[in-house]
């Protein structure tokens, strides 16, 4: 009988790491192909369809980028937390809570001039996300509660709060659960390429700002040291709890911006489907990009190609809607599994 033996690796080079990550994505594609084949579709044809539908036309490209915008926000949100070894699984809930708070201003507040109105909405969206992230942050810092569980569970609470208003006070005239359309003042401008809107610019500006924050400021240094070793950070005189709390707030604020960007940039109203799991897909983006803000943009686009492609597969090839989710899941699964190969040499030995 053979047994698998693991030996701890001292260190893995950047090149090795890249090869392992790309292999993991490759394996995920092969597995997805099998899944597609089982549904009676030639996987190569499906892959071609994914690529052409997402990148084969100006419309396809613009729609792909439209989906990339919230993924950049949520990817940044999860990555900045990961940078300090914190898991924010709650970007989805923070997205919804930010969107809900911004919507509340649109419904109850005065209509301001466009620049002012949008500034207020962006701030409220970020604030909502930050507030929602403050709950698990306090639970972790005060009571050592695991943030994976608290952030995850609070997603359902946030979504239900949004539902409460959508099915109640904010219900549309035809009794469906969505708000009336927002006034023009509360809409992001289009930038002249399909449905692409100024949210993209906001996202890219934040990418640069976060890069500077992480690598060129005291705050960023504290965050990185905290993520690298809690004991060393404490030894260096860093207030770990304060740093963690701040990171959570920033993470939540970024996820909240994803919500604002969706309602003000694309949907022009709040409803139940402003996010197709962008908060969760952001986890995959962050994990693939390894906390570097610029690389997050690349992987956000990569995953939005898959999302867009999966939509087309559903329509053109009559594959179930689950195909997109399954592919995402397989990628995350393969990436997490590949961690083993980064940390260990895996050997097959003869056992008795």
């Amino acid at each position, binding site marked *: 009988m053979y*047994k698998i033996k693991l030996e701890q690796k*001292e*260190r893995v080079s950047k090149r090795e790491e890249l090869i392992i990550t790309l292999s993991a994505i490759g394996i995920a594609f092969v597995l997805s192909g099998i899944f597609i084949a089982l549904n009676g579709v030639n996987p190569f044809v499906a892959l071609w369809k994914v690529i052409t539908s997402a990148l084969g036309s100006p419309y396809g490209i613009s729609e792909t980028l439209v989906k990339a915008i919230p993924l950049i926000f949520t990817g940044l949100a999860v990555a900045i937390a990961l940078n300090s070894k914190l898991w924010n699984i709650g970007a989805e809930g923070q997205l919804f809570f930010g969107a809900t708070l911004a919507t509340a201003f649109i419904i109850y507040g005065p209509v301001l001039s466009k620049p002012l109105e949008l500034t207020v909405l962006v701030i409220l969206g970020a604030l909502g996300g930050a507030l929602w992230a403050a709950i698990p942050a306090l639970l972790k810092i005060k009571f050592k509660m695991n943030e994976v569980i608290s952030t995850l569970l609070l997603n359902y609470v946030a979504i239900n709060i949004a539902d409460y208003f959508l099915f109640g006070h904010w219900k549309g005239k035809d009794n469906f659960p969505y708000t009336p359309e927002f006034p023009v003042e509360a809409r992001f401008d289009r930038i002249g390429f399909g449905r692409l809107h100024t949210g993209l610019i906001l996202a890219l500006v934040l990418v640069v700002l976060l890069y*500077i924050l992480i*690598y*060129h*400021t*005291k705050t960023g*240094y504290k965050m*990185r*040291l905290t993520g*690298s*070793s809690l*004991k*060393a*950070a*404490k*030894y*260096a*005189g*860093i*207030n770990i709890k304060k740093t963690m709390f701040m990171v959570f707030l920033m993470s939540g604020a970024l996820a909240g911006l994803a919500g604002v960007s969706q309602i003000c940039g694309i949907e022009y109203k709040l409803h139940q489907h402003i996010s197709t799991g962008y908060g969760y897909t952001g986890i995959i983006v962050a994990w693939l990009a390894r906390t570097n803000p610029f690389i997050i943009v690349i992987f956000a686009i990569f995953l939005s190609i898959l999302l867009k492609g999966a939509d087309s597969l559903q329509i053109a090839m009559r594959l179930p809607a689950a195909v997109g989710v399954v592919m995402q899941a397989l990628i995350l699964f393969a990436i997490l599994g590949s961690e083993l190969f980064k940390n260990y040499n895996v050997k097959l030995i003869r*056992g*008795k």
Partner: protein
Amino acid sequence: MTEIKNNSALILMKNISKSFFGNKVNTDVDFTLDAGEIHALLGENGAGKTTLMNMLTGVYFPDEGEIYFKGKKLNFKFPGEALKIGIGMVHQRFSLVGNLTVLENLILGHPDNKFVINIPEKKKLIKTYMDQFNFQVDLNAIVGELPIGLRQKVEILKMLVREVDVLIVDEPTTVLTKQEADNLMEILKSIAKTGKGIIFITHKMSEVFNIADKITVLRKGLKIATVDKDETNPRKLAKMMVGKESEATFERPKVDTKPGVVKIQKLFVNSDKGVLAVNDLSFEIAGGEIIGIAGVSGNGQVELADALTGNRDVIRGKILFKDDDITNDPPVKRIDKGVSYVPGDRIHVGVAGNQSVWENIIMKVYRLPLFKKGLLLNNKKLREYAEKIIEKYNIFLPSINLPALLLSGGNLQKLIIGREMERDCDLYVFVYPTRGLDVGATEFVRNAILQLRNQGKAVILISGDFDEIFGLSDKIAVMYEGQFTGIFNNGDHSLEEIGLMMSGCTEEEAVKEMTDV
């Protein structure tokens, strides 16, 4: 005591050697255990006791040497096999499932378990063991809710239920009160009477003489001797444990001391486990003075250092630094006030291993206005600062962008010491500063410590190395169970006397023990 005695030994370990990453942990060690014998394995932390036993239980494989059990050569492939053939170990960290009851823990993983477990039958079997050895444990209690002393009994009971012939207990009394420890030793004695062999790992002298038939002393991975209890005394053992006294080769010029730079008053500090680690300690340190703290690891030295530097909360008492009460200051304030710490755990505390070398060097200065560029950090200036320290302290490395964890032990310690010396503090706390370093790096570190003293700094040196303690210290304090069993000028007591104080004797008792013979 040994009514049942076989001619052939129960365990025979021959010429065992083991290295980790090029460091020899055991070198050519022999060890035998007879049935019915309690054999104490004595030695300081890091002497190689636990590693030796881990090879006996199949956790590690020896690089060289052979192990025989009841005359049969052992060749384990997997750790579980040792327990199957009858060698069981109770580790310092217990392997019990906290959410299950005592009974469930005892049955869990038992090799006789079928798909359906006959619980009443098992219970009866367990009860017979409990009666035979006078265990008092409630089988229905949840293990996680039991006090630590009882949990340990469950561990031992678990081994008995598995019918082991050899029981290894790794420093079992460190977590116990005096009564619990006495009770445990009675139980172990009665177990040995039934013909089982017991290996008792410890560094406490009193226990050795209470319980052991034979004693094997290990030091720095080497077996020093195996002796019968009746043929030895604490003094001889203490000497074997700590090694030879060597000549101090360090010049300690007279410097003007500044009394009372640090005053510690009735200090109480807890360990991570919530047990009192520093117990009512009061002393003072002058500027221009090195106070060497000797003691077996785990007697509160590290907790004391952590508390002084703000890395651990103080339960009660006061720390005065230059007559300023810093007891409740967070680490950052103490760093600014001039307290420096070179921690014993270089890799996990002294540096953030995944961050680059230069980012680790700037760890305590990056906040200074000097390194600001508007709202940002002046990374260029910070790198230059790091490069200056690397050159000044002769740290050898290919690139300052290298993650710190890739540095060798010596270079890493140079990095930490360079970083700390450059800050010009008034109190320096060193914990095991030369542990694991080669000769060259050791000399560098020791000279650095002396240099600080000569500059008039107050220095606390916590060390397990007697060359270091004797060579550098102006005063020596011996720490045992959170208290000083003695604090005196370097030269007032011999190594043997200090060895005795390290095992719990007071200064007077130690002197008396030495003059009696």
